[in-house]
């Protein structure tokens, strides 16, 4: 039971950095960049795309941060 609790905890902790990346990806798909000649994006669409970009790239940066920390922990950096 103790093991199961900690396995679930570990999986959740590992999943946390992926949440903003996934949310960012969804937003980026929902609000794609305006194609040439298409109707210009509204303010809300632009804001949605921006939020998606921030979440996506911020999330990736967070994962990169964790990788750097783990490498440092392992003595590779």
């Amino acid at each position, binding site marked *: 039971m103790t*093991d199961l609790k*900690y396995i679930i905890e*570990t999986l959740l*902790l590992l999943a946390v950095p992926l949440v*903003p990346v996934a949310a960012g990806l969804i937003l980026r798909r929902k609000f794609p960049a305006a194609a040439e000649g298409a109707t210009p994006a509204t303010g809300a669409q632009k804001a949605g795309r921006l939020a998606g970009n921030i979440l996506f790239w911020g999330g990736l940066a967070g994962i990169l*941060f*964790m990788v750097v*920390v783990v490498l440092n*922990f392992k003595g590779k*950096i």
Partner: protein
Amino acid sequence: MKKITLLITLCLLAAGAARAAGDAAWDKNRPEFKYFQEQDLYSEDSWQELAPEARNEALEKAEEPALERHDAELADYAAINRKWGLQEADQQVRRLNAEKIKAVYLWVGNKEGHELNHKVYVVKAMLAKASTEGINDADAQALTPYMLPGAIKDMRSMKAAAEMAQKQQAGVKAQGPGSQSTAKLDKFAAGTHGKMNAGKLSNLYTGSKATGDADVMLAGGAPKAGAKLPGSTAPNTTTAKTVKYTAPAALDEAGRTKSTAWTSDAYGYTITANGETKTYRDAAKAKEAIRQLPNGSVSKIILYGHGSPGMQTVGPESYDAADTAALMKGKMAKDGVIQFAGCNTASIGGATLNPAVGLSMITRRLLYFSLPYFGDRSSGTPAAEAKEQWEKGWNADLARDTSAGMKGAIVCGYRTFGLVPGRLPGLTKLMGSQEATTPGYVAGKKACYQDGKEVPVP
């Protein structure tokens, strides 16, 4: 009357026989029965089959040797059940074979036997690792319950010593890690202070502009006598100003050549005392310099290296709260600052909305709890024991614990992993900071304590 006497005698005899039979029942906790098991004389089943007289006779015979074995095993266990030095560890892991550990299980107890088994397993594995690939912070932490701090320090330098011996054997002139240094260290440290004092970057964690080295000035930039000490409302009036001392040559005076490595090997001691700041990489020189300083003269010391919950390394040296207190005993000025410039040298603190701090918390939990917990479980440690060991260790607060033993001094550590730009591979070469002794800018969330209570970052 005769009948009554006879009846009483019979009753007494019956009671005596019953008592004797009761005493001779199998009792795994009695030394005699442990002795039977160890010598493979009787098992619980074969004991039941014995006649009462034979049982009593066997017990009588076993009493003396059993008590001797019992006392000897308890004394031996008491000698084993403490932190080991390096030499002792080496001897003990050779001596404590399966048979010996089995004896501890039998004579001392299951829990003790299991703990000893785990201790031998960990120490044996780490001794092997130390001389081949070297031990890292997590390994050092795993060893902390079992080995003396000095022994862990020695184990950290075992790989370098082995390599050096190999080089010497091969006829190559060995060069210690301190033989390559940076002639531009002064320039770098001063440079990073200026260039890297980027308050905006600090916002990554805290939004504060605390950089960890804001009040550190290298020699030549020392505050004038009478100037206020950092974090102090009183002028720098340590009585020690007139006391002369000769500190060992600091690194910035050594004029050695610069390391050209792509990755960082930065660590060191930065000591500010009597308005003068000196930096050292060599622990022996730093300790000697501190020893020669007058009492109450150190306004700031930065211990720069790798940190982990409850421990900080400075090169091959490692410091826990007691080590640090011993190192700086009596030397700190009032409100003087001891800065642990290493990751996770304070506890994680309360909840946060800062995503960078959150990620750091998650990583700390994964590295210092989840990984070692599952490592222990895979090596057969019971869940309750592994949980107890790692739950209490992963969020240890070195800064708070140190401050509790350093009256009046402010002790600061990092609640998070600290990112030091000067340590990034490649950048470290570009900046010439491979062997820097001060961290310069650190992106991390600081926490400071005085007398065990949290105080604002000075």
